[in-house]
């Protein structure tokens, strides 16, 4: 367990025992404090805390064991599986969930609009979609002009049972174009 007690910028109480340790999570640009043992349990995953304690239900818990990607959020700029991350591990870290993206975020817009002939729509049931959007967002932040192979590589940890892979890849390419047109990604 790697709660960074003394060095993390946002950590509340230095040292301290496990029962009363304060965990601070910066979620969508706002700090949230939790006292372990009282507000959260050390065994709780980041996914659980985000959904059940903060009500951020955009991310989904489906497999709960790192196989499907539906719970993907961005932590310190990287796509992570929030079901495989303990909340205490995220202490002091910057977390972005889909609720933290702007309504006109180019990735969201590209997924929503995807409909041109030959590709289908970028989602059907939509349960996996927030996970794909966040994975795609992290990819585009790091690589604003990915090739189709780059996209396949980055998004192959996410499962879409409805099978909208062709359209999702296309939506990521469109998002890349939108970012270029707008002159940079923004949250």
């Amino acid at each position, binding site marked *: 367990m790697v709660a960074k007690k003394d060095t993390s910028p946002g950590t509340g109480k230095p040292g301290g025992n496990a029962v009363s340790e304060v965990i601070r999570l910066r979620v969508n640009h706002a700090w949230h404090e939790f006292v372990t043992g009282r507000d959260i349990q050390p065994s709780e995953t980041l996914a659980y805390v985000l959904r*059940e304690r903060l009500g951020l239900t955009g991310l989904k818990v489906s497999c709960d*064991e790192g196989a499907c990607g539906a719970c993907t959020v961005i932590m310190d700029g990287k796509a992570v599986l929030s079901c495989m991350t303990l909340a205490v591990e995220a202490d002091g870290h910057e977390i972005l969930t889909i609720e933290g993206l702007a309504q006109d975020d180019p990735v969201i817009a590209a997924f*929503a609009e995807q*409909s041109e002939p030959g590709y289908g729509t970028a989602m*059907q049931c939509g349960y996996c979609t927030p996970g794909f959007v966040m994975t795609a967002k992290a990819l585009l932040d790091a690589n604003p002009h990915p090739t189709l192979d780059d996209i396949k590589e980055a998004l192959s940890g996410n499962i*879409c*049972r*409805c099978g909208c892979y062709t359209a999702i890849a296309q939506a990521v390419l469109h998002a890349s174009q939108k970012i270029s047109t707008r002159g940079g990604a923004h949250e």
Partner: protein
Amino acid sequence: MSNSFKPRVPRKYVGGYRPRIDGLDKASGKVKFADDLTTKLSFPDMLYARVLKSPYPHARIKHMDTEAVEKLEGVRAILTYQDPEVKKLKVTNAGWTDGVDILSYERMMWYPMRDRRVIGDCARWVGDEVGLVVAADTEAIAEEALRLVKIEWEVLPFVLDPIEAMKEGAPSVHPELRETNVLPEDPVGGPDVFLQKGEVDKAFSEADVVVESKSVHHNPNQGSLDNWCCVIEWKEDMLTVWSNSYEAHQTRMHMSQMLDLPLSKVRVVCSYVGGQFGRNDTGEQPFFLYTALLAKKTGRPVKFRHNNRESFLNSRQPAIYTARAGAKKDGTITAMTFKSIGDAGAYADQTMFALKFGPAEIAEVTLAHIPNLKMEAYGVYTNKLPACMMRGVANSQFNLSFGQIVDILAEKLGMDPIDLAIKNFGHEEESLPNKSLVEVLHEGARRIGWENRHKPGAGPVYEHVRKRGMGFSFHPGWHAEWQEVRRGRIQVSFMLNPDGTVMLEAPTVETGSGSNTCNFLGCLEALSFLAVRPEDVHYSPVVDTERSLRDCVQTDSSVSYLQSEAMMVAAADLKKKICELAGPKMGVKPEELDIEEGNIFIKASPDKRMEVKTWLMEETDLAPIVATVNRVPLDLNTGIPFIATFAEVEVDTDTGEVEVLKLVVLHDCGTVMHASGAEAQQLGGQVMGLGEALYEEIIYDEKRGVPMNFNWIDYKIATMADFPPVDPVLMEIWRGGGEYGACGIGESTLTCTPRAVLNAIYNAINVRVDELPVKPEKILKALGKI
């Protein structure tokens, strides 16, 4: 992509390429699924239920000691198989309905096979819910509680293989019901030999060519990401259920009947569903019942949610098919037989429906011109995961056999299988060739490059070991309107507000199939006489039995048009009502009025027009105008169109790996309701189609009867990296009845894929693999390399 679909009848809204209506809400994570609506924040005093799952494939509880469970802090209620409220529950089964119609306990489809107790004392597969449920403050405590229960099991003999299970002396899966594991003849599907036409034996003896085949379809899982769940609150005499069931009214009926409550005292609220795919389309589920009983016992809302591993609740109905076909030298097929053995798993579900109803329907709409025909089917209990429906009831299994025997026969006759198909197959009320089949197969051939297909095993070899081949399979589509009559009344309603905005009521739980988008487009199309714009329509996706009309269940892939057809009737009624209101005020009879493009006018003087919404606001009592329609689907036998998949594969003869290079997926839809959504289905279905063909499989430890891979690390679902180029082809050749004359396609997008891929593999390597999924070791075995 080139060759995009062009509608036969151009319409303003229906049929085009456009985003989904819920695209933005889904892309931004705003859509609330049942699990999102039922967090601890929304239900602070909520408890969590867990159920005991059997570790044995067949065992009976001799004794259960729950003392430690009761003492565990945080456990709020337990229910065991010995409690009176559990014992009181009627013996049920997993075959109430196929999702099409709402059915009661007495009228459930498979009433002769009531084979399941809710939380009984006997387990019949590893994972069977048995013995005990608990409600606790957290899921973790509830799980801990299950670990503390002490059980003395009587471990019973079990059987996994359906052929072994049929043999005399095999361990009986339901000894208290039947000695044999072979399911009885059923009242709906008919006797074991359920179809017999002409003189089959004579026809075979007179045929110039006779061929035989065997195919084994297996047990893929639906794999919905949205694990099935419910939260139930039972306050005073009112029971409220929030769930991701896609059958709101059937769920209400099930709970009312099993818990002996008036329908008016059961409220079921269903929001979006994260993928259905046939997952327990059977109109019942024990978890609703025991969660309700725990809610009653505790007086608190109780949540039950399967985890991902428990979501392996059922699979496609595995089936072993043997087929035989006889033909004249000129390719006229004179006789066909199909025999199937279906592996029901531990509970019968809709096994016999899958084995009999589906093929019987295909006989009617595809094999009608084969003069001598025989079909027989047997369902068998085994101690495995119950098998049921998955994106279709029986079509994939039948197609695996049908597409194979056509391919084998064509080769033996020295014919192109496309020509053989066109020469022989079509609907009973039409002459051959079937126009839809001709166009679908010829378009598929053109797009895959069929003229380059070589003889089996005779194609070029790449990198010394990689061999290419092409294959196809075809099938009748299904779920035209006349096939949906059993659904009963489709209910929709328009409420026109005086400012011209519209409240659309067309209840259907959105599972991803996009019927909500189709309904929205259908509404705009139907109300085009009022010039209603997309921003004028309010349409709630949540079905709530307390206020909703009957939900049109998104099974049979047909909600895309069923409610839109009803809306055309509702629109005519709405127009009539507006004219009836306006007539007296305008000093004319209502029938002398008409409405176009949002303006009302006297037909005799069409130049003088008044905007409807202006008139409503200025001249009326401002009450909304409501048009509600109950419409039974049109019972007009229009036949059915055809569908096909063409595949090109490359087989590595050193490793046995199969790479699918390209798929062409063709659907004659009658009318395309939403082109982007339909293509999404055609493309997306290939994740399952290819999964069934090549990757997905539930594997058992044969010695212990334990399923080994109820998780998505070991159960392989294709990702983006595995997905090949797919050419989706929408066509409008056939036409059904009604305004649109459409049919469903969602289920059928994957029906032909496994067989197309397997025929292509044969074409590549000149050896057939009969059994799904075609994993590398099966190829190597077929090639004699291992």
